[in-house]
């Protein structure tokens, strides 16, 4: 029997970027907030320290900061007519666990979507005609515009101390920045981080082809910086250990460093860790949630926490699962196209390559994931798709992200992978190669979705989320086009040798690709096309707000976190300025 606790103003489920931003904004508005996090507390003073972090085996290989799959995972299949099987250890994507969530171990590439991305269906219809969009491509416009989100992008930039070079400041183009970006109201808080030799060669080659290279924007401060919460960030040390680990320099943004210190001293905020939320308690008649049920993983005790307002800010899978389990909104059915919960699961379609420069010294162990240059000439609607046979695109970049010795080595094809001659090949090539990536969009497809698995359960007895996902013909065509353009730049760099890699036909759950999972609780203009309205308020439960990339209608050609943070501030503003004064639907269906 669950112990019923005293009602609280607001409960926030999941302490990643969205959850901490909402917690902060709600306490500022005077609410008493309980933050529930199923994983451990991760306090930088304990965990983000040297020498502990310089351990590739612990963090990168054994995934210290990632979700414990023995407690919870998902099942996966490529198509609706196949049997799904559990992902026994995450591979393709790596959701985090504990305070900070996936915001600790991310690579901190910090992008905004294009203004045209937010109205992609309309733009494609206007430019190429409604018939040009395949029936199975279930894309839709965002119910919010770039201009509306811009001030919130700016707030998130400042929270994170983002480093970059503006390309469009209030409509004025600035040389050296991304000329395709939406107008920014302010410069990046910090100057662009340094660049490596490989990315510098890429930049010159791209320019020679008439493209527009610029430094990749990163949520890693290039200099000491005080964010608007009064927290002092350090400067990047270019340690090369960023990905899958934390930052001891307090340069790479994380909820733990950039926001949690304020919440930890906030009397209106209470953090409960190892609190596994099993269920939203839903009053269907009243169209509201009355609270949440959770298990204290330290004692096994069950609790019911009544709340006036619930913010659901776990990962894409958890958000979708909670709504499906509680019966909030209609579950999506790919056969009929009806229903919305679980619909439009999307991902990032990345392909890449490497170039080898015999005899050059790139010192690849010095770096940061965003220490690179990119071109945005083939993203979204930055280029004409007439006659190409696909929609979408992505940025193309060359980065020096660090080269940890277990996983960060790469050899030309034909060199031995072991045995006689292998070490000589490593010694020859390890320090003289550079890498490329294309950050391809994924435009939603009718058959890519999430529902509840009929067979497999988590450690608390709940059905796992079942992911049905595969690459589409559009994805492959789009990606091959990007790879071709990338190859053109690589050739112009004149390497000794290079390789490019198109993606295999089927999406596979191993190896790692990106943690850019999106969709499942998409936002839209009415309950027929979405789970949440433009303020991330659930149509069928007005006091429930869903945060995170699960609200994206589709995934564009950029890393998702910048937009995720902007949406959190946008949603928080609607709650504190409007909803709290008169609780009820913010948009009338």
């Amino acid at each position, binding site marked *: 029997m669950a112990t019923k606790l005293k009602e609280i103003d607001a409960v926030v489920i999941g302490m990643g970027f969205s959850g901490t931003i909402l917690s902060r904004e709600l306490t500022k508005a005077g609410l008493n907030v309980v933050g529930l996090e199923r994983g451990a507390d991760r306090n930088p003073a304990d965990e983000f320290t040297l020498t502990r972090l310089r351990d590739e085996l612990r963090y990168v*290989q054994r995934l210290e900061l990632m979700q414990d799959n023995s407690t919870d995972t998902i099942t996966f299949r490529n198509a609706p007519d196949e049997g799904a099987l559990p992902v026994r*250890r995450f591979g393709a994507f790596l959701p985090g666990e504990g305070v900070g969530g996936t915001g600790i171990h991310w690579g901190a590439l910090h992008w905004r979507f294009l203004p045209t991305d937010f109205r992609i269906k309309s733009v494609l219809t206007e430019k190429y005609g409604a018939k040009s969009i395949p029936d199975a491509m279930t894309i839709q416009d965002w119910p919010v515009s770039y201009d509306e989100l811009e001030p919130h992008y700016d707030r998130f930039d400042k929270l994170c101390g983002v480093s970059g070079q503006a390309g469009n400041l209030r409509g004025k183009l600035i040389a050296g920045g991304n000329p395709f970006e939406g107008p920014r109201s302010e410069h990046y808080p910090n100057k662009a981080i340094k660049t490596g030799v490989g990315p510098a060669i890429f930049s010159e080659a791209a320019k020679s082809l008439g493209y527009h290279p610029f430094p990749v924007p990163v949520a890693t401060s290039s200099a000491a910086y005080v964010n608007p919460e009064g927290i002092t960030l350090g400067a990047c040390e270019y340690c*090369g250990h960023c990905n899958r680990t934390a930052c001891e320099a307090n340069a790479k943004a994380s909820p733990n460093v950039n926001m949690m210190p304020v919440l930890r001293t906030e009397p209106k905020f209470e953090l409960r860790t190892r609190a596994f939320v099993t269920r939203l308690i839903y009053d269907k008649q009243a169209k509201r949630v009355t609270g949440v049920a959770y298990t204290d993983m330290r004692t096994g005790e069950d609790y019911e926490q009544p709340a006036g307002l619930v913010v659901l800010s776990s990962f894409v899978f958890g958000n979708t699962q909670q709504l499906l389990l509680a019966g909030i909104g209609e579950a999506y059915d790919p056969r009929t196209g009806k229903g919305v919960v679980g619909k439009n699961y999307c991902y990032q379609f990345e392909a890449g390559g490497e170039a080898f420069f015999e005899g050059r010294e790139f010192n690849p162990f010095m770096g940061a994931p965003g220490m690179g240059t990119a071109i945005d000439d083939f993203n979204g609607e930055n280029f004409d798709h007439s006659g190409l046979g696909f929609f979408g695109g992505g940025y193309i970049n060359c980065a020096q992200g660090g080269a940890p010795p277990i996983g960060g080595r790469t050899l030309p094809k034909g060199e031995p992978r*072991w045995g006689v001659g292998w070490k000589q090949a490593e010694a020859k090539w390890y320090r003289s190669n550079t890498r490329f990536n294309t950050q391809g969009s994924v435009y939603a497809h009718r058959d890519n979705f999430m529902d509840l698995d009929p067979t497999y359960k988590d450690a608390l007895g709940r059905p796992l989320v079942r992911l049905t996902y595969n690459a589409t013909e559009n994805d492959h065509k789009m990606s091959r086009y990007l790879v071709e353009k990338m190859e053109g730049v690589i050739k112009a760099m004149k390497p000794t040798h290079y390789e490019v890699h198109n993606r295999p036909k089927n999406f596979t759950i191993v190896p790692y690709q990106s943690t850019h999972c999106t969709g499942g609780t998409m936002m839209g203009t009415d309950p027929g096309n979405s789970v949440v309205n433009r303020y991330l308020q659930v149509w069928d439960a007005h006091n429930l707000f869903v945060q995170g990339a699960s609200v994206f209608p589709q995934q564009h050609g950029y890393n998702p976190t910048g937009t995720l943070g902007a949406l959190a501030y946008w949603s928080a503003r609607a709650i504190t300025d409007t909803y709290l004064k008169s609780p009820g639907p913010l948009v009338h269906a």
Partner: protein
Amino acid sequence: MPDDSVPRRQFLLGAGLAGTAIAAGLAEPVEAQQTAAAAGAAAAPAAPDAEPFVTLSALEAAFITAAVDTLIPADELSPSGSDCGVAIFIDRQLGSAWGGGAKMYRAGPFRKGKPEQGYQLALSPREYFAAGITAANAWTRKTFAGKDFDRLAPADRVAALKAMEEGKAEFENFSARAFFAQLHGITMAGFFADPIYGGNRNKAGWKVLGFPGLPATYADKIDAYRDKRYVADPQSIADFS
């Protein structure tokens, strides 16, 4: 290693005794030290501190030692895999929480999936390697005149691993190709992980690459070393402890 220079029986006995001696708190028998050193020695000097295996059986340890020495042969760039501690690393990893299947979803039903669905066996990494070694030895016995993998001449060991890598070795009820991938992966991890885990002894792996290890604070070095090799005597976590 010449084919029959070390009587296997003696090696197994020695390694087994070493484990027992440690467990019982006894001094390591001289014979075990000698045989272990002999087994590990190739062109490189014997490892200064021959550590006992705590997870692998003597038979498994012999397989792993032979495998890592074939994947990472001694040459002018480094001692052999086992002399760099890679076999000990694997022994410790398989005995760790990871080796026991920590953070891994292990509920059934267990079904054979498509390759796209990833690992679907009930086995923990430790169990997986045990089953893989058994299957590999059964295959080499069938293919190479009754010999376990560690008893093969160096050229045959290479041929055997190649056959596994290319999926040409037909193990009974076990994927040779997948096993090779795991074996190769954990061997590379052992050669390149921080030496605190038992492998990469004397930072041998890092020296091959020119990887400087810790502390990795380069803000003042990126520009100073543009197109110029940054050379540092690599340092490990233990060097700062």
